[in-house]
């Protein structure tokens, strides 16, 4: 079946603009995660959704970052007033609620803030 998809694949924006990143998880996966992959920083957790609720937002770096999930499916990560340090690859993952309990990752959105 289809894997996790993310859009856009690349986004270039100017400092100070707002951006929205989208994640479509695998159908039936109730858990969804956002991570950020930066050069030299590895993978950092941002936020976790179970259904439409976000019980763990502890990784969001500032109040400029927010995320929502609707219908237990699509999630949107919004970054307001982007800064150059926001430049990174943003990864989404959804988790198989079955026996393997594995997280499956999307291809990522590469965000460049000029």
């Amino acid at each position: 079946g289809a894997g996790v998809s993310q859009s856009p694949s690349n986004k270039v924006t100017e400092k100070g603009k707002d951006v929205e990143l989208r994640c479509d998880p695998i159908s039936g996966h109730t858990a969804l995660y956002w991570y950020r992959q930066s050069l030299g920083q590895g993978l950092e957790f941002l936020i976790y959704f179970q259904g439409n609720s976000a019980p763990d937002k502890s990784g969001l770096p500032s109040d400029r970052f927010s995320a929502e999930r609707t219908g237990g499916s699509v999630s949107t990560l919004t970054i307001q007033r982007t800064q150059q340090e926001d430049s990174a690859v943003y990864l989404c993952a959804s988790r198989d609620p079955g026996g393997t309990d594995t997280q499956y990752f999307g291809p990522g959105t590469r965000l460049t803030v000029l």
Partner: protein
Amino acid sequence: AQRVTQPEKLLSVFKGAPVELKCNYSYSGSPELFWYVQYSRQRLQLLLRHISRESIKGFTADLNKGETSFHLKKPFAQEEDSAMYYCALRRGRGSTLGRLYFGRGTQLTVWP
């Protein structure tokens, strides 16, 4: 607090040589440990997990609770093993949160 450390940012070996990618962790409970791999221009994917005790693509990893390590090993490296490897920890089996704590990754290059 939990932490995953991968001490080598870069690792190079020749084809056919053994390879070991190091991973150490700190966590007071019983963790689940994983290795994820990202080949060039591909998405991050699970390579193996300690509870499965399996060999994938010739790679194995054993959880050593005494040394708090989960090193990834392969006896004979192949060029197609060149990739970025991430060690990751999840707090406890069946943790309802399930977020992963990642190391910073090791870029493995296997020369012909």
